[in-house]
């Protein structure tokens, strides 16, 4: 049995708890236990808060990392934004002693001390490295017969030198996970394009950010894709809720394309129900292929 | 690619040879305060169709000073590209109303100022000296070509009168064409009215032939330039198209060149003049200087005037700062908002403690006069054409 702290962030627990439920359940099936990271906050979003005030960003991120550090547990996330923030902060603190001193000086009053003894993991790494494709395949009881468009999101892969998942131009890790469920990962034109939400663009200029999303859906439709999967709660929100907003803003036809978090897809393949994975609470309803 | 009558812009102007170094835009008289970016236009000429030009109102900001052409390291003619672009706009009818009115006036009144042809010689009326009128059959060695601006603009008319006085005093055998004098076509050409310009060339050459005119003195460097540089080329083209063009060869001089000859011949010197106790700074007109390399004659004249302390602008000769009067700018609003060059010029002159800005071009006189008033130097500084200075000092 393995144990991890789960850093929830904002969107997973507060908008898409289905991601949380699916993730905890799937991991548990493979003997990975999840522990609450009590008192965690917003990561805070690297492109947003990093753009406002890097000092505040670093301190809050360091606080979140330190909570896990003090539990002595590696921590996993289900959002690329959280991944970006916590991993970047952890990386900077491990690289730069002067930064570590500054952070600890400022966290002293909270009774916290960053030591740098843990790793920040993305749930995708747990699935791929801890569990592995072989075991995932063995666990499939209801193989999915569907064409899936994979969306990686930006901060999962980049900056590649810090993230360490190989080339950000030719990633395969999520495609392999998708294919382990029996589904087909179908290539499409804007596969590696940003969903448009990050960097404060969704907040500040919804129309611009939706134009990104729309472009992605158009090219997925062209490729005959049934549903899109992602590893990021924020991209997830942008792509699920975004479809409704695109209709509102641009008055175009609904893409009506189901959006699934990677553990939700895996959960389905393992025989979990649509409802227990929270999929029926999405803005875009599941199509038949994803209803169990 | 954009098209002109002569073919596409590459055939006409070699635009593909541009290496986009930006020397033109960097040198341009107005680029610092206008959207005009000739390098970009060279690019647009290749990448876009003519319709694109309508978006570029700043094409009318070009003063046609020619510095881009003078300096182009690839020996191209960006200033002509602007003329080509304006031609396209004129053809399509999308031009500023003021420019359209000026061009129409050339067609109907033979001048761009919208004034009747019958009033072209009005400036002569309060003149004491008798002037030969070649159009009335009187013979003279030279035609003194006054030009539209010096005929109609009340401030510039004073230059015409000064010219008559000075040339008469110096014993030059000259006459004028009076009401019959035509527009030389320089400004219409720079405004892109190629067809009108060709018509003027044909008419004017026939007119000169009719009155046996072969030697011309011009007041304006613009007229000088067009007679010397544009007419022969245009006449050749017209002949190839079977137009009736007389076989005459014009010998054209700007008036400062004639005065220089008189100095060299001993017919004009300081002893013939009263003291002129002024600090004189000479402003090079683009059409005399940059475009035709005539830098010395005006300076030679000013230097013999007794009492005159001649100083120089830092930016002079081929680096002279254009006054923004040429290239049809007299009739176009312009898009720029920054400080006008003429203001910079009078301020520079003031800093250098000049009391007289000497010019040799009606447009320079007009723009610098305006600037002098705007900048508040009415009490301390005069803007004078060299002819006006001579008229004042000659005994």
């Amino acid at each position: 049995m393995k144990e991890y702290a789960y850093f929830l962030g904002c969107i997973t627990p507060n908008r898409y708890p289905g991601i949380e439920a699916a993730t905890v359940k799937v991991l548990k099936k493979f003997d990975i236990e999840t522990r609450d990271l009590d008192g965690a906050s917003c990561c805070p979003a690297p492109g947003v808060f990093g753009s406002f005030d890097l000092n505040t960003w670093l301190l809050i991120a360091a606080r979140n990392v330190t909570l896990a550090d003090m539990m002595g547990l590696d921590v996993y996330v289900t959002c690329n934004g959280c991944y970006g923030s916590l991993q970047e902060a952890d990386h900077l603190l491990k690289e730069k002693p002067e930064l570590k001193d500054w952070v600890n000086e400022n966290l002293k009053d909270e009774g916290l001390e960053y030591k740098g003894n843990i790793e920040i993991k993305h749930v995708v790494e747990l699935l791929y490295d801890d569990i592995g494709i072989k075991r995932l395949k063995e666990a499939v009881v209801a193989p999915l017969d569907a064409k899936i468009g994979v969306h990686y999101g930006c901060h999962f892969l980049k900056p590649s030198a810090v993230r360490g998942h190989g080339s950000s131009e030719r990633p395969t890790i999520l495609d392999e996970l998708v294919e382990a469920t029996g589904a087909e990962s179908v290539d499409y034109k804007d596969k590696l394009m940003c969903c448009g939400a990050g960097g404060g663009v969704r907040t500040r200029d919804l129309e611009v950010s939706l134009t990104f999303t729309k472009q992605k859906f158009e090219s997925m439709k062209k490729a005959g894709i049934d549903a899109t999967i992602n590893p990021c709660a924020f991209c997830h929100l942008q792509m699920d809720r975004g479809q409704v907003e695109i209709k509102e803003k641009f008055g175009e036809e609904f893409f009506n394309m189901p959006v699934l978090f990677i553990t939700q897809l895996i959960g389905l393949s393992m025989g979990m129900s649509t409802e227990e994975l929270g999929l029926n609470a999405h803005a875009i309803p599941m199509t038949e292929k994803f209803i169990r | 690619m954009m098209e002109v009558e002569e073919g596409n812009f590459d055939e006409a102007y070699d635009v593909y040879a541009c290496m986009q170094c930006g020397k033109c835009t960097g040198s341009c008289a107005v680029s610092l305060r206008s959207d005009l970016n000739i390098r970009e236009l060279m690019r647009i000429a290749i990448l876009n169709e003519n319709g694109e030009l309508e978006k570029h109102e700043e094409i009318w900001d070009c003063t046609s000073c020619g510095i881009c052409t003078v300096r182009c390291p690839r020996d191209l003619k960006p200033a002509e590209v602007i003329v080509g672009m304006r031609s396209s706009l004129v053809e399509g009818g999308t031009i500023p109303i003021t420019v359209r009115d000026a061009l129409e006036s050339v067609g109907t009144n033979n001048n761009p100022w919208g004034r009747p042809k019958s009033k072209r010689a009005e400036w002569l009326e309060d003149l004491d000296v008798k002037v030969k009128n070649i159009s009335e059959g009187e013979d003279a060695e030279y035609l003194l070509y006054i030009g539209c601006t010096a005929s109609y603009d009340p401030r510039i008319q004073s230059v015409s009168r000064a010219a008559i006085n000075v040339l008469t005093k110096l014993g030059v055998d000259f006459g004028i064409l009076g009401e019959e004098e035509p527009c030389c076509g320089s400004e219409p050409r720079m405004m892109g009215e190629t067809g009108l310009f060709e018509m003027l060339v044909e008419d004017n050459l026939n007119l000169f032939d009719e009155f046996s005119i072969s030697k011309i003195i011009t007041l304006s460097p613009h007229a000088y330039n067009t007679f010397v540089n544009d007419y022969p080329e245009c006449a050749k083209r017209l002949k190839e198209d079977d137009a009736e063009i007389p076989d005459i060869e014009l010998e054209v001089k700007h008036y400062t060149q004639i005065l220089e000859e008189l100095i060299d011949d001993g017919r004009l010197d300081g002893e013939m003049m009263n003291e002129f106790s002024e600090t004189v700074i000479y402003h090079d007109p683009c059409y005399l200087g940059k475009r035709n390399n005539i830098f010395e004659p005006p300076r030679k004249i000013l230097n013999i005037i007794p009492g005159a302390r001649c100083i120089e602008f830092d930016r002079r000769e081929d680096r002279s700062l254009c006054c923004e009067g040429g290239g049809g700018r007299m009739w176009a609003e312009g898009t720029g908002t920054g400080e006008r060059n003429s203001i910079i010029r009078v301020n520079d002159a003031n800093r250098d403690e000049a009391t007289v800005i000497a010019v040799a071009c009606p447009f320079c006189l007009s723009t610098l006069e305006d600037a002098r008033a705007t900048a508040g130097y009415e009490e301390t500084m005069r803007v004078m054409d060299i002819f006006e200075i001579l008229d004042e000092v000659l005994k």
Partner: protein
Amino acid sequence: MSLVEDIEECGWVFGKDTVDSLYACMQCGKCTGSCPSGRITGYRTRRLMNKVQSGDRSILEDPDIWLCTTCYTCYERCPREVKTTDVIRALRNVAAKEGHMSKAHRATAMYVIKTGHAVPINDATKKLRKKLGLSEIPPTTHKYPEALKAIQDISKKMKFDKLVGFDWNTMNLEDREEK
């Protein structure tokens, strides 16, 4: 202080080398050509780098600098390894400091000060959480007031509250003219 010095100061957590990497920019345009935002907006990464290099402060007022989604494509592809995305974030810090921060962005920041979350919980989600067998309130700052206080202490210490114009009496944003 010059613009680059301001950016260095705001981006000190990245280290001086990261910000100074912008001097290696050779204006090849790979960034602009790669930028997904630039495909649909007026945001031009190369031009931004050029303006930063030449110290043109007018870009601080340029709303286009907020159109980067921090997708890191330019950062990954830059042949001179300019840390573009980091430079842009640090540059935005300078802009924010000079008051160029949109109301919507200030509101996002306000939620973090107020709740510890940029996207706080709502009733619908509480219900859904219950249905899914999760705790109604997640074990975050939402559940632990002392944790929220820690976030608020950090905001005060870093003067983040002042930066976004947070009023502790109303627990809301103060009125401020949007620059």
